[in-house]
């Protein structure tokens, strides 16, 4: 009885206005701590970067400095599974334009990798004093604004339908498989030069070689996934809902994230105000803006930020699962086709990839519509 009451007041707290604020605050504290414990600078958590690292670890791209199976991603998704099961919100569903969602995930990743971060990291970079992030956030707002215009005009990816339990368990089980691969790290041998031939690749230098101890990262991910599932925390919905509905419910969470990350960075001595020489960042502002225009546009058409898609995958939403797989695939392509930026600036084909992505998103925005009433 007491347990039931406790669960119900917990339920109310997290769906109240305090839910996103508490979630943002917890992420704001834990993300800089992860940097303190070993993650790359201003990259306590970056859903895009970490999925890109996973793509690299699986050999989907060969950028040797960004290959690692990030336990945070596994934790966030599985934390949402736990919360979903506990609160009866694990409801497998599928069938809302799956292939379009894959493509949106693909190009959202391309845009994020031109900027060098997802919306979570854009806010975390700002909270670490990286002023280049302001350009990324500006681009994010523009991209979300374009998406909102399409939503107002009747854009819809159509209805998902309830699906068998097995459909909902695919993404959680893929995460379990990734965890096994992280811990076992199979290696089939080395080539003549002594380089590992895979199948799993872990960076020996660069951001991919910087990580907190896996169990800590996993537990932090689980906690964040649990809280974000309860509060529906979303870093794209935050801006979208203000533009579309004048509703600051989710935005409060993002503000809490920035404030708490800023304070935690100050305490840990990780706050460095400036533009030049920021960790895993470049100063090519046009492409910081345009990369995030593409990402924000694609995220908005897809219905949420990359973290939110991990959470929804954990609730059994297979369409979000495909969005996540689209992002991981996009990361592989972005690096293989020299479209992902580096601290030196945009790569050769980054601008072209952003252009293609924007055209694809515009076509999707113009052609996908469905009567809702």
């Amino acid at each position, binding site marked *: 009885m007491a347990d039931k009451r406790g669960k119900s007041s917990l339920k109310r707290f997290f769906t109240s206005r305090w839910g996103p604020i508490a979630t943002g605050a917890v992420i704001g504290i834990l993300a800089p701590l992860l940097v303190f414990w070993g993650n790359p600078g201003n990259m306590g958590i970056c859903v895009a970067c970490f999925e890109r690292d996973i793509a690299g670890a699986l050999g989907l791209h060969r950028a040797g400095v960004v290959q690692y199976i990030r336990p945070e991603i596994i934790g966030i998704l599985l934390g949402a599974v736990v919360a979903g099961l506990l609160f009866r919100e694990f409801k497998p569903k599928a069938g809302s334009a799956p292939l379009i969602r894959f493509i949106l995930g693909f190009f959202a990743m391309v845009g994020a990798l031109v900027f060098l971060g997802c919306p979570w990291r854009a806010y975390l970079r700002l909270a670490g004093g990286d002023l280049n992030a302001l350009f990324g956030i500006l681009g994010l707002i523009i991209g979300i604004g374009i998406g909102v215009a399409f939503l107002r005009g009747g854009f819809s990816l159509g209805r998902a339908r309830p699906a068998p339990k097995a459909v909902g368990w695919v993404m959680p089980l893929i995460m379990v498989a990734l965890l096994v691969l992280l811990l076992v790290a199979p290696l089939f041998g080395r080539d003549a030069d002594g380089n590992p031939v895979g199948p799993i690749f872990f960076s020996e230098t660069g951001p991919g070689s910087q990580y907190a101890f896996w169990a800590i990262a996993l537990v932090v991910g689980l906690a964040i996934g649990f809280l974000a599932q309860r509060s529906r925390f979303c870093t794209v919905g935050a801006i979208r809902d203000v533009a579309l*509905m004048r509703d600051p419910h989710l935005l409060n969470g993002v503000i809490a994230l920035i404030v708490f990350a800023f304070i935690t960075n100050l305490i840990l001595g990780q706050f460095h105000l400036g533009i030049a020489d920021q960790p895993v960042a470049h100063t090519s502002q046009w492409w910081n803006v345009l990369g995030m225009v593409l990402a924000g546009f694609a995220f908005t058409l897809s219905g949420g930020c990359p973290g939110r898609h991990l959470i929804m995958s954990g609730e059994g939403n297979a369409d979000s699962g495909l969005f996540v797989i689209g992002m991981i695939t996009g990361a592989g392509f972005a690096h293989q086709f020299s479209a992902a930026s580096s601290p030196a600036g945009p790569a050769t084909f980054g601008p072209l990839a952003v252009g293609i992505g924007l055209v694809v998103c515009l076509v999707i925005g113009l052609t996908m519509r469905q009567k809702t009433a």
Partner: protein
Amino acid sequence: MTDNVLTVDCSGLSCPEPALAAKKALTSTKSGIVEVLVDSTTSRDNVLRAGKRACWAGEALERDEGGFRVVFRK
């Protein structure tokens, strides 16, 4: 104002479509009662919040077939 019930079926739609459709219906309808069908607690809460902002009193009822019926009265 009439007592005709306007039903908006938002089941299976992803964010922010249910809340947006609810807002559109509530701000343009002449009906005294608007009911919005959704399939998730997230959409239920978002639709309730949208209704509150449009100054309608809303109440969510569980449906036998799963999901919720959010009923708004002016």
